[in-house]
Structure formats: C-alpha cells, structure tokens
C-alpha cells in the first residue's frame, strides 16, 4: 500500500513538472498552431527572473526573504509574457500558417536568448541601447521626409553599418577604459543558484519516505495554472474571442474581434505560463543558459501524446508519462521478480533513469502508431493552422 502511494505521489510529482512545462506550449501550439522552440528559453527567462527577485529579497533580510517566491511568480509571468509578445510581434506574426518557418525562426530566437543571458553585461545593454537609438532614431528622422518611400532602402543601407560601427567602436573604447563592473556579465555562462526559501525545504515524512515541500508546491501551482487557464478560456470574454479566432479567423475578424490583439494575448499567456514553469523548475534544478533545453523535448512529448489543442489531453498525458517514467526508472517492478532469474537481470538493465527515458520514448512511438492524433484528438474539421 505504501509502495503504491509512494509510486503514485512520485509519478504525480514528475508529471506535474512535465505538465507545468508543457502547459504554455500546449496553448501556443494547440490554439495557434505555432511550434515554439523558444518555449524552453522563455522558461529560462522565468528562472532567471526568480534568481534576480531572490537576490533583491536577500537584501530585505530574513522574514521577507522567505516570501520571495510569491513575488517571483507574477514577475516571472510578466517577464516571460513580455518576451513572448515581443517574439510574436517581432517574428511570429509574419509566419502564421507556415509551421516549418516558425520552427526555424523560434529555434533561432532560442539560441539568441541563450547567448544573451550568457554574455549580457551593462556594457552590452548600453551598446544595444545606443544601436537602437541611432538606427531606429535615424530611421524615424528619415521617415519624416516626404520622399521616404523612395530613399528608404538607401537610408537603411547607410544607417545600419553606420550605427553598428559607432556602437562597436563605443563598446571597444568603453570596454578598455571601464572596469569589470561594466564589462562583467550579469549571469555568465555559469549556472546561478536559486535557493528555495526555508519553508519550502524539507518535507512531510510518511513512513519511510518523505514528500518534499517543493514538489507539493509545484503540484499545487500546476493545479492553479490548469484551473486558471480552463476558466480563462471557457468563462471569460477574451477566452471566447481566442476560441473564436482559433475556429475561424476571417469570420471572427468580420465580426469585429481584434485578431491581432487576440494573437498577441494568446502568445503572452502561453509565454507567461512558461515563465511560471521556469520559476518552479528553478527550485528543483539548476538555472543556467541551457535550463530550458532540458525541458523542451519533454514538453513537446507531452503535447503530442495528449493530442493537440486539448488542455485535458496535456494533463492526462503529463501525468501518465510521469508515472511510467517513475515506474521504469525506480525499478519498483523488479521487486516482484525473483532475484536469480534471467528476467531479473534483464529488468535491472532497463531500470536506470537514463534507460527509463528511452523506454518512455519507445512506448510513445508505439502509442502513436495506435492513435496518431494523441489521447484526445481534435474532432471535426482540422483547425486551420
């Protein structure tokens, strides 16, 4: 009985991590048909936000420090949502309905974001600011001329290398004269340390094992997120608009729904959920530039198995995969086989954590042979991606 409870809880806790990582992806992928390979990096932004908030709260002293995670959650949501909106407005909106191109573009963005957190320093911030000021400011100036359309390309051809050159020169000069304070990266390639507040460390002992508070916290957070998303999509006016645009974009536009706003909003919410996921996983593992990459494959795995476009599918798939992962990896089924048999050796070989991942993928491939559209396929006509 205890073994059963323990398996259930541990499977659930692995599943909830998968679910919280996959939830935002499911919304963006399921509702908008965008394969967002930068989802992991949005999680990473959430994790780094948590790190920054933690450091700020450390300055406040002990009673306040314990609550940094409460402040980090909405902030992580906001930061990631903002990044998501920028991504949508800057890149993805030009690529709707072209899944392969979005895949490539978002992957590129993910690499850019990774490199950004590695090397961002005050100097780099300054350089980006100066470049934007020169380039976009110059463009704005040119735009006021009446013959703008005619000289537009020429202006860009002059402005781009000019502002790039000034920025680089400025960087070279400042980099040499200024000290480490300006040139030292904020985070660096090194992972950074997020410590769970005191009340999230330890756990509730039950028999021989212990339920870690962090896992309970993540399970609770996941439940809140799922319920919140469900209510938002089904009970709120904006949820209704999102669903309408998903079903028929041009008809919705005719009826006065601001489709561009809806796109941006959907993307913001999906990305914001990634930020919350980042906040959650920073309590479990490391926070580094490649934090998100560890989760992106798992998140896609959950979304595909669950069936695109259904939140319930994502939930069931995450929990099922978590449970299977745990049962194989922990080798609890070995205890049912006698230790001398050949079967025992065979099973022991498979009962490692890295083998569990392989086995989960084998099972998923087999499952997708039987049900290619996942657990809960979209009914009716396929949604126009």
């Amino acid at each position, binding site marked *: 009985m205890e073994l059963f409870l*323990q398996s259930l809880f*541990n499977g659930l*806790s*692995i599943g909830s*991590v998968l679910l919280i990582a996959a939830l935002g992806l499911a919304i963006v992928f399921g509702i908008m048909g965008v394969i967002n390979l930068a989802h992991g990096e949005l999680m990473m932004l959430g994790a780094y936000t948590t790190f920054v908030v933690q450091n700020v709260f450390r300055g406040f002293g002990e009673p306040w420090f314990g609550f940094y995670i409460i402040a980090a959650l909405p902030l992580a949501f906001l930061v990631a949502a903002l990044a998501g909106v920028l991504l949508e407005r800057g890149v993805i909106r*030009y690529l709707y309905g072209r899944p392969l191109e979005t895949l490539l573009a978002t992957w590129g963005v993910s690499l850019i974001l990774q*490199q950004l957190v*590695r090397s961002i320093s005050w100097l780099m911030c300054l350089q980006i600011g100066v470049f934007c000021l020169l380039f976009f400011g110059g463009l704005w100036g040119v735009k006021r001329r009446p013959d703008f359309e005619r000289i537009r*390309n*020429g202006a*860009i*051809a002059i402005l*781009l*290398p000019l502002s*790039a*050159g000034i920025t*680089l020169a400025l960087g*070279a000069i400042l980099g*040499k004269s200024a000290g*480490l304070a300006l040139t*030292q990266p904020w985070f660096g*390639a*090194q*992972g950074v*340390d*997020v*410590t*769970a507040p005191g009340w999230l*460390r*330890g*756990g509730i*002992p039950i028999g*021989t*094992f*212990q339920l*870690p*508070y*962090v*896992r309970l916290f993540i399970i609770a957070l996941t439940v809140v997120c799922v319920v919140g998303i469900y209510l938002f999509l089904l009970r709120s006016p904006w949820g209704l608009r999102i669903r309408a645009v998903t079903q028929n974009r041009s008809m919705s536009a005719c009826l006065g729904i601001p489709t561009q706003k809806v796109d941006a909003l959907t993307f913001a919410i999906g990305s914001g959920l990634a930020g919350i996921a980042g906040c959650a996983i920073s309590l*479990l*593992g*490391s926070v*580094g*530039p*490649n*934090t998100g*990459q*560890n989760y992106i494959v798992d998140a896609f795995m959950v979304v595909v198995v669950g069936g695109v476009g259904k939140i319930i599918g994502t939930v069931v798939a995450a929990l099922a995969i978590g449970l299977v*992962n*745990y049962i*194989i*990896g*922990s*080798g*609890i089924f070995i205890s049912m086989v006698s230790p001398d048999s050949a079967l025992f050796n065979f099973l022991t070989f498979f009962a*490692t*954590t*890295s083998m*569990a*991942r392989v086995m989960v993928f084998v099972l998923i491939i087999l499952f997708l042979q039987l049900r290619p559209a996942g657990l809960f396929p979209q009914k009716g006509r396929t949604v126009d991606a």
Partner: protein
Amino acid sequence: MTHRLGRRKFLLYGTAALGSSILLKACTEGNVAETDAATPGAGGGVDTIKVGILHSLSGTMAISEQSVVDAEQLAIEEINNAGGVLGKKIQAVVEDGASDWPTFAEKARKLIDRDKVATVFGCWTSASRKAVLPVFESSGHMLWYPVQYEGQECSKNVFYTGAAPNQQIEPAVDWLLENKGQQFFLVGSDYVFPRTANTIIKAQLEAKGGQTVGEDYIPLGGTEVTAIITKIQAALPDGGVIFNTLNGDSNVAFFKQMQGAGLTPDKYPTMSVSIAEEEVRAIGTEYLKGHYAAWNYFQSVNTPENQKFVQAFKSKYGQNRVTNDPMEAAYIMVYLWKQAVEKAGTADDIEAVRKAAVGQTLQAPGGLVTLQNNHHLSKTVRIGEIGDDGMFKIVSETPAPVDPIPWNQYVADTKGYSCNWEDPTKGGKYMM
C-alpha cells in the same frame, strides 16, 4: 502581408550586410592587435608563439569549462608579463567545443592545421577527450588535459595534469570505507567517465570488503532524480554512502531534490568527484553543507603559492570568483609547458618538447607536482568537507605526492599493466 524580396532590395540589403560585416571584422581584428600592443615589451616585429585553448564556452559543460579557460588565460598573461617564453609572447587561440564531441574534434583539427598552434590546452569531459584523441595521435600533436578522469588510457599525445583514479577515486573510497560505512550506492551521468569510474569502484569495493548496493545513471543534463532517490531509500533504508560521479547541471538537481526528500548528509554522506568550489557556488551551499569531495587541490589549501594564485585570479576576474582543482591543473599545465619549451629550446619541435616535459617539477598551488614518464602528474590527494562558506574543510591529506597509475590495478582487464613513454620498448601499455 507577404511581399517578395525584389532584386534591387536584395542587392541593397546584401551590400549593407556585407559592409557591416567587414566593419565588424575590422573592429575585432583591431582588438586583437591592440591587446598585443598593450602588453609591455611587445614591440612590432617580435613574433609570438600560438597556443590553442579548446573548451566548451557554451552548452551543458560551459558551467565548468569557462573557469578553466579563465585560469589558462591568467597563466598566459602572467607568463607574458614576465617576459614570455624564449623571449616570445604567447598568443592564445580560443575555440568553443560547445559541449559537443564532434565539434571538439573539428576544432582540434582546425587549431592544428589552420592556426598551426604549438600545443593545445583543452577538454573537460572524457567524451570530448576521446573525440579529439585520434586527431592528436594522427598528427603527432600534443594536448594538455587538466581534469581528473577515469584512467584506463595512456596516450603519447596527451599530458594528463588532473588526477588519475588512484589519486582521487581510490583514496576517496578507502577513506569512506574507513570512516563512513561499507555500503555504497553509485550515482553517475550516463557517459564514459562515471561508467568506468564505477567499474573501478565496484572492483575496489569487492577487493576491500565493501558492498555495492545499487547504481544508477542520469543522461547528461538530466534533472529528474525522483526515481534514483526511491532506489537509494530502498537499497539503504538506514543510511549509507553515496558515491556521486554526476557531471554538470545534474548535480544541482540531485542535491536539491535529495534534501527535499530528507536524505541528509549525516545519514547519507555523499562523496563527489566532480563538485568543486565553482559548482558549490552555483548549486548553493545550503544544499551541499556536510557532503564531501575528493580532489588534489582546494581553494582553502594553505600554501604561499596558493595564496598568490587565488589573489591573482580574484584581482583579474573579480573578488566573488573562486578557484578549484581543474582550474589549478589548467593553470599549472601552462607553466609546465613553458618549462618544457625552455628546456627544449624550441616550441615548434613537438617531439623535443614532449621529451623535455617529462620530469618537470613545479611548486604548484596544491603542492609539489612532477610530470612522470606515463604523462601524468604525481600530486597530493585531499578530501574536503563542504562548510558554511562554500569552501572545503580539508579532512584528509596525503603526506607526500601520490604517483599516478593510469591503468587501474583493481579492474581485471588492466591489472598488472603500466605505461612508460620514456622507454620505446614499453610504450603506452605493457605488462609490468
């Protein structure tokens, strides 16, 4: 919405892109020239010796390897400021292996063929070393490798300045058997170093009367360790020793989740061989306090050479930075190479430098080291307990440097074998 890129526009954008890239290139090249000129004594026309630095500056291993690059750069800068090697400045060509083993091989080939470097300092994971090995062996070139590793290798083309298993893993197991218990659970990343290390540990435990109660592996970079914790609790319900050969980010997940599950160091002391000061800082002392690590060097080692090293490092890279064992090994290997070049009288004749390198000694920050004829260093072995300040309290230290044994004497396949590159009849693997 969609508009096609016209030919005119294409031309214009193309010109703009080309122009800015040329400008960018000119700027970066200017940078290199300027730094050369900035170092005192480097007048025009004085030629330099190029050396390669090959580490992961991105990817899962960047967490560890970036700091090793910093240490190598520090040594090069110090040597240059003191007048260089044979009157020439050292110029480092840094390449990013990107935590990707084929990339390592490709970049090693590039450093040797295109940059014509005199030697290469590089690699961290055994997988990356195994990937570049054929490149160095086929071209007769030299790699200096600064990280403790699993042994079972003795290449003519590599100088191993980190610990061999008998200088880290074996003493750690002995110490645990003596002080912490007989039952061991082995946890590692799923690649060559942990698997080989665990083979050695299992053979050693069998020979010494210990017991391996379980082992498990996580994919490199993996963060889900719930299943492993269940296994540890099932195999060691009343506590026992955990031997940890995880590498990279997985360590963070492992220690955070172990504490959450109630596996505390008083009941489950963990001995790590890949966690040093840098990693302690990144993981968080709160999670690691009371656990152990085995290395040849800790920042807390109390020698004048070490104080000088730590101070120089901090003043170059910032007061909040820390030093660790692979960084020390990387730092001293640049000096050992310099000594070898000076003894050989040339940097270009790789064979002569290789011969001159063997027998070089150095009063390193971690104590006296000597480069042996099996291309490994004899070094002091230390075991440290992680304290509140993120530094290691040294709980055990060998009185003299330990001689390296690359071929493991506990594993049946390599028992009785040795390595000697001084004697042409013996070579990399011969029966003692």
